[in-house]
């Protein structure tokens, strides 16, 4: 039997409200607004209060998928990563790195965005990286 709350940052808008993830026996059962946060001071909006719901959604993807014969088929990480890397390498060698482009994400962390642009610039070799800053 274990219940704890983990403080983290809401992933909806740019306000940056601090929420507590309520985790009961490893399961996310809800969120609470942080009472001590200088940003939200113990409050949240309707989206924030329901932040846990999409995390535990039935519709979450649980396995990598590759398109085979027109439809997406579940596969192993090993196969999916090899396939993606192989095809990126092939396109890069045939048409140059600038024939590849990537969209990073305003929903992902700073660390992930950093890794993404490093991946695109250093591993692929192009500056074709952007995200939906304008949307």
């Amino acid at each position, binding site marked *: 039997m274990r219940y704890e709350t*983990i*403080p*983290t*940052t809401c*992933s909806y*808008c*740019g*306000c*940056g409200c*601090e929420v507590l993830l309520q*985790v009961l026996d*490893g399961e*996310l059962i809800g969120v609470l607004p942080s009472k001590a946060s*200088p*940003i939200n001071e113990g409050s949240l*909006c*309707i*989206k924030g*209060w*329901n932040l846990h*719901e*999409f*995390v535990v*959604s039935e*519709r*979450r*993807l*649980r396995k*990598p998928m*590759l*398109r085979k014969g027109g439809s*997406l088929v579940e596969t192993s*990480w090993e196969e*999916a*990563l090899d396939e993606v890397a192989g095809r*990126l390498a092939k396109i890069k060698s045939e048409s140059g790195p*600038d024939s590849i*482009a*990537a*969209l*990073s*994400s*305003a929903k992902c*962390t*700073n*660390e992930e*965005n950093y*890794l993404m*642009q*490093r*991946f695109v610039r250093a*591993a692929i070799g*192009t*500056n*074709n*990286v*952007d995200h*939906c800053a*304008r*949307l």
Partner: protein
Amino acid sequence: MTNSIAELEDAACIFIIGSNTTEAHPLVANRILRAKQKGAKLIVADPRKIHIAEFADIHLSHRLGSDVALINGIMHVILAEGWEAKDYIASRTEGFEALERVVRGYTPEKVSGITGVPAEQIRAVAEAYARSASSSIVYAMGITQHTTGVDNVKSLANLAMLCGRIGVECGGVNPLRGQNNVQGACDMGALPNVLPGYQKVTDEAARKKFEQAWGVALPSEVGLTVMKMMNGLHAGSVRALYVMGENPAMSDPNSHHVREALSRAELLVVQDITLTETTEYAHAVLPGVSFAEKDGTFTNTERRVQRVRKGIEPVGDSREDGWILCELSRRLGHAMELEPASELMDEIAGLTPSYGGMRYDRLEAFGLQWPCPDAEHPGTKYLHKDKFARGRGLFHAIEYQPPAEACDDEYPMQLTTGRSFVHFHTGTMTRRSPSLDEEQKDPFVQMHPEDAEAHGISPPGQVKVITRRGSISLEAKLSARIPKGMLFIPFHFAEAAANLLTIDALDPIAGIPEYKVCAARVERE
């Protein structure tokens, strides 16, 4: 934001333009309403009488896309009355004469003709903004999502500098960022022209620094923006697109064009937490994790770098997004370590001057605001104190330009898009959330009752909204909060995607699409 969220509470005057604050940024709106309760003057400029406008001392219902004219008009009054901050202008800015020349042409009466706002209101706003003890400007996508987006933003900066409102407490020009970490994604260089910390890819010294850290040669040519990537896919010059945690098939304007582009990709890889409209075109779908399953940081709209902490294990066989990127990078011959996130932050801090002092142990309780150049620096509450980043603040003399698409007989109404308080962006998260879905299930178009009557529409009724790009069917909601001749559609709903209608005309500098205005017509279904 140049200033901090908490500062808004103590501002003497707040000017909101192009931000539906209570719906889209509720926890910023509460500071604004608190300021109002403490006696602040509240000015809201929005064509619609949005919720927060109910509390405004002055609500300006200006025409869609007439922001530059409106702001020039306000500045005209300020100059005519001699309310400008003369010392500030002399000591901290440049380019004032050019601004003055342009603004001279924008008399309240002329501006009234362009914007539809009574000249008296323009005068009242000028007085409130210029003469209050402290004045803060708050804006969001209603300002930026125009072909004149950059002009709009510069005009607001002009207004703020004219009254000496930048680099002071409770002042500033404060954009509210729509995505939780759009600030961080920009800071981290997820942009085609800059490396982390806005260091230009064309700057050799900056590039050298990163080449040394990463041990590879880096490309020096500016890359493609989203819209150019889509055009590249159409033209065949871009063969592969890798998408992490985005949904361009829904979020981008003129979606038909985007979906066509995606379908032409030779390789489309999508890394996301659910299937989306974009994965329909994907060749590979890699399940990443949500914010609750990983460690890291987000940077909020007031530049505050805040911790994201792992609460639960990844769902199913999904993997942390950073792990996926490292695995692919290794396979392509460039090893990146998914070190503990704290060490990754140390690497970032070493390469990004404004993040220089960001260390996980310092971020523990509620983070730090950049710039934070070193380990002793306490972070920065508001920018441009004493001195602008570029030295002197530069005024831009800007003339009003109408929106890209004008109304005509065939498309006599103006369509604008935005958010509802229930949903977020393309709905990949909120519409999968039962409580939120229940609160607002269906797409709708807001229109004025008289327009509805003219079209024989009586609710609840389905209508068809048509533009040159496409048409969608949805329910009409009648409201006197929207001016006659205007339609508003929230863009969260895939089954009636507003972006099938929007125009992909871009701001020439920022490349931002004009989501906020295009010509449309409505028909009864």
